[in-house]
């Protein structure tokens, strides 16, 4: 039995590390969707954040990278907001276009900036930070309380977003805009601006998610490295029933699904690695099928004006 605790700890640690970008992106998307806007462009915002964090970290250290990542995510989301909130274009197709745009832009700027050699593994990254005392708890301590600061940011963001959405006037207005925009507008809510802010906030979270992917998980940038994590985050929002706390728990579940490969490798199970690549997407599909009906989307979500 001496083997079990370290293995379990390693699995939990990996689950949380892998879940961090998912939870961050899904938390941001929850804000946007509660306001009535589904943003398929968060996949792109995450990718833009990932590259921006790599460039920022290379030039001036990881925290500049984090800042640039948030700005990059917000910039892409601002463009998306202009198209869907400002002009009133189809959200789903515009979101797909944003992801295409980010794929192209990051591909081109990555090669411009790093040349053919690539970013390599020389990026200054965010090291895990031990929380005094708590990290000494057996099994759980090293897994929960020895993570990068961005994980703690994600953990703090969840109650903050919950509070903002459900305990403030702003949150009430935002949710009203997402449920029934005509009624909200009649009650004096400025639907357009509030949706734009929600979308841009969501973009900032997605950018931050990209930064955590690069600086606290992978340690380098690669083209299209987000590999659908933004889309998975959108599914996580559905699974979490558009509620920040349940969304975070759903994100954690996915972190576990993605971290399974570490566990299987540690146990010495020989399976083709592609099965592990598929696994999170398959789980998402099953989970979507299982949970729909018990959750309800904001009534005005993705409705074109």
């Amino acid at each position: 039995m001496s083997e079990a605790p370290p293995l379990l700890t390693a699995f939990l640690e990996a689950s949380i590390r892998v879940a961090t970008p998912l939870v961050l992106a899904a938390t941001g998307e929850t804000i946007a969707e509660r306001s009535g806007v589904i943003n398929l462009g968060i996949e792109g915002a995450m990718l833009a954040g990932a590259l921006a964090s790599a460039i920022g970290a290379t030039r001036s250290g990881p925290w500049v990278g984090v800042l640039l990542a948030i700005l990059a995510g917000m910039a892409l989301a601002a463009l998306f907001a202009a198209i869907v909130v400002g002009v009133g274009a189809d959200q789903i197709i515009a979101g797909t276009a944003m992801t295409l745009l980010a794929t192209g832009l990051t591909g081109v700027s990555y090669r411009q900036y790093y040349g053919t050699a690539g970013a390599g593994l020389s990026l200054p990254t965010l090291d895990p930070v031990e929380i005094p005392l708590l990290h000494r708890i057996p099994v759980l301590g090293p897994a929960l309380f020895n993570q990068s600061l961005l994980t703690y940011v994600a953990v703090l963001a969840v109650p903050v977003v919950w509070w903002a959405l459900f305990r403030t006037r702003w949150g009430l207005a935002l949710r009203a805009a997402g449920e029934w925009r005509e009624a909200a507008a009649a009650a004096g809510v400025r639907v357009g601006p509030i949706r734009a802010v929600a979308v841009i906030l969501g973009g900032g979270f997605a950018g931050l998610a990209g930064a955590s992917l690069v600086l606290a998980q992978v340690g380098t940038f690669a083209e299209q490295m987000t590999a659908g994590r933004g889309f998975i985050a959108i599914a996580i929002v559905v699974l979490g029933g558009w509620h920040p706390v349940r969304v975070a728990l759903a994100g954690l579940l996915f972190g576990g699904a993605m971290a399974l490969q570490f566990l299987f490798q540690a146990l010495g199970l020989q399976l083709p690695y592609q099965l592990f690549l598929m696994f999170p997407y398959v789980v998402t599909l099953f989970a979507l099928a299982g949970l729909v009906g018990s959750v309800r989307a904001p009534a005005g979500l993705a409705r074109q004006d």
Partner: protein
Amino acid sequence: MGRGAFGSWYVISSATLLRSVPLIIIGLGIATAFRAGALNIGAEGQFYAGAIAATWLGLHVAGWPAPFAIGSVWLVAVVAGGAWVVVPVILKLRFGVLEVISTLLLNFIASALVSLMVTGPLQEARRTYPQSDLIATSARLAVFPGTRLHLGFLVALLLAVGLHVFFSRSIGGFHLLVTGIGPRAAEISGRIDVRKTSALALLCSGGFAGLAGGMEITGVSYALFQNLSPGYGFTAIAVALLARLNPLAIVATGILFGALEAGAAAMQREASVPTVVVNVVEAAIIVSVLVVEVARRRIAARVNAEESE
């Protein structure tokens, strides 16, 4: 870039038109789905499903008469592409899951499946590279003399004409359109089964994308490998939207994007500009089309309002 797309007849036929074949065929499928209001964003995955099936059968048809071999390979490609949409269709009909999310997720599963196939069951006999063996010569398409352009281009043109007739002349095409524009009105009319229509449209669009995958195997690569498609499934969305979902216009926009891709590939070879720059152009076109579309609707609404005053 222009030279890489239109520099000579060889370049036009063997780069631009060759690349337009999958774009046109997938674009026709996307137009079918979008017309019914079903947003299939998973053509990339359906393309790969078709390519996997085509490769599998293509390896086993040595000695068959060519038309029969090619026909069978295309058929399994269509079926595989359609089958790849069955899960999103079920999820949509039974559980109300947005097809956008499910078709997207299946892209990643398909891509991993290709990787699994070319390192496993379909890997070449030498087991050196992650790719399949070449398919039997009986399943390979004839090419136009002196070019790399295969007969699939003619098939793409025929499909476009056929779909145009279907959309504009048949009751099925009308049902599709009404389902997309006014699902409530369609339902209330009692004559159009909205769920069935949009499910069928999704299955058809998967079949088109699967056929494109089979066509790429039988006409261009003759073998399966990762990254067989440089994102055709996504480019085709721009192709279909820019053509305003009109099949004949899709031929034109498909060739336009074929030229873009061919030119970008030439630029990558000669000026090392990455091909992903095409994605930026595609995104710009999609956004422009969306914005123009909204403007048109607004103007139309204003004209209507003024006329009724």
